[in-house]
């Protein structure tokens, strides 16, 4: 395998893992909020979270590019320092996190909706406050679904191309991921490299789907006494 292929694989795994870690906590919080509470403008929040799913990825990328540009809302002009994000792997992490967010939130929301709210009420009557109930009951009861959501987010991040290439570019060894490497190899007619990149992508996708199916089927684990 060529060096660029290995670089792309390594970078893809790093970027997708970082994006998953970045997205999982806010996505869990948003999903819980959307699944369990009623508040004004809930539909608007839900729609905003879902936007990356329906927008062209390049549009999301362009929006991020504008935000992180020196005169953007998250740019050096506003922050007073240069966060040095554009055209680095960090930009790829942010872009794929944003693109993965709707999928993770949706999956996590369905998971939370599947947790019987009466179990949470039972925990409340047993003396657990809202936080304790969430961390000791809701989260463990939702754990498998949340893990499945994280895997889906990871695969979404692995496959992300449009937004990533817009903000991070396609620099071999620095910001070139599997998706952008396949695009480049195909553009320049490098068949061998395109094929090996394809095989790697197939393997990652296959393992991810297998493990999320396993999570969906496996019986819940039983935690023993505290």
């Amino acid at each position, binding site marked *: 395998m060529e060096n660029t292929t290995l670089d792309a694989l390594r970078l893809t795994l790093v970027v997708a893992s970082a994006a998953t870690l970045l997205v999982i906590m806010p996505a869990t919080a948003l999903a819980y909020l959307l699944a369990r509470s009623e508040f004004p403008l809930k539909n608007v929040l839900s729609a905003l979270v879902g936007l990356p799913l329906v927008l062209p990825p390049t549009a999301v990328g362009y929006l991020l590019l504008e935000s992180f540009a020196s005169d953007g809302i998250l740019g050096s002009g506003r922050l007073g320092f240069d966060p040095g994000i554009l055209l680095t792997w960090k930009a790829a992490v942010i872009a794929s996190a944003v693109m993965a967010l709707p999928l993770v939130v949706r999956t996590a929301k369905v998971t939370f909706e599947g947790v*019987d709210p009466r179990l949470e*009420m*039972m925990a*409340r*009557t*047993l*003396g657990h406050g809202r936080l304790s109930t969430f961390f000791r009951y809701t989260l463990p009861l939702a754990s498998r679904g949340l893990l499945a959501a994280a895997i889906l987010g990871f695969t979404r991040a692995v496959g992300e191309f449009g937004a990533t290439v817009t903000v991070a570019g396609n620099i071999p060894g620095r910001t070139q991921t599997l998706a952008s490497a396949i695009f480049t190899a195909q553009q320049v007619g490098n068949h061998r490299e395109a094929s090996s990149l394809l095989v790697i992508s197939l393997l990652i996708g296959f393992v991810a789907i297998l493990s999320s199916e396993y999570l969906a089927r496996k019986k819940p684990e*039983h935690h*023993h006494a*505290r």
Partner: protein
Amino acid sequence: MKEATERLQVRIKLPLDSFDLDVAFDTSSQATGVFGVSGAGKTNLLRSIAGLERRARGYIRLGEAVWLDSSRRFFLRPEHRFVGYVPQDGLLFPHKNVRGNLLAGTHRAPGGRNGQQSTFQSVCKVLELEPFLERDIATLSGGEKQRVALGRALCSAPRLLLLDEPLASLDVALRGKVLPFLRRVREEFDIPLILVSHEPAEVRALCDDMIVLEQGRIVARGQPREVLTQRHVVSLIEREKGWGGPWEQE
């Protein structure tokens, strides 16, 4: 720890789909029955007492502790009310085994670790739970589940037990096996309890005071042996059992 049963004062108004729950009663009995046909508002009453109905208005007080006083916009959250709630289907936590379920509320029992341990042990003894402490809850029978649900409530050292049709999900034979445990709980633990039931026999077996709910209102009140023979209550029971008349032929 023997002391007089604390007085429970309940004044609740709660709008429901087709009628309002509007109930006021005081009781100092150790076991109070709440009787009524299905859909009379019995479960809503229990949930309001437990603090699970945010929309409930009125006043609830147990002994010196005020749990709800809407005139002063006071609402005590369920986790601070110290109730032991046992629903019809047990609602055991599927991610914990029997022991984990029993320990779910022990942190608030008094007496530190030793006190909690001795509460736990006496509950296990009274309800004969020792043989299945390490069992997975999915492997329990319906009757065992209800005993664990009862044990979980008791281990949290509640000041009031709320039993919501604890036998209704069981078949007749199993009911006969679980009912003695309810009586034992009544005898062994000095905790006032409210039993919601649509079975006259259960109320008679367990309670020394009762109210009858119909469409969210109290229509009879008193000792079970008297109340359950009142003509209106008897007709309610008969209607519930489906002997009531031509409109319920199946």
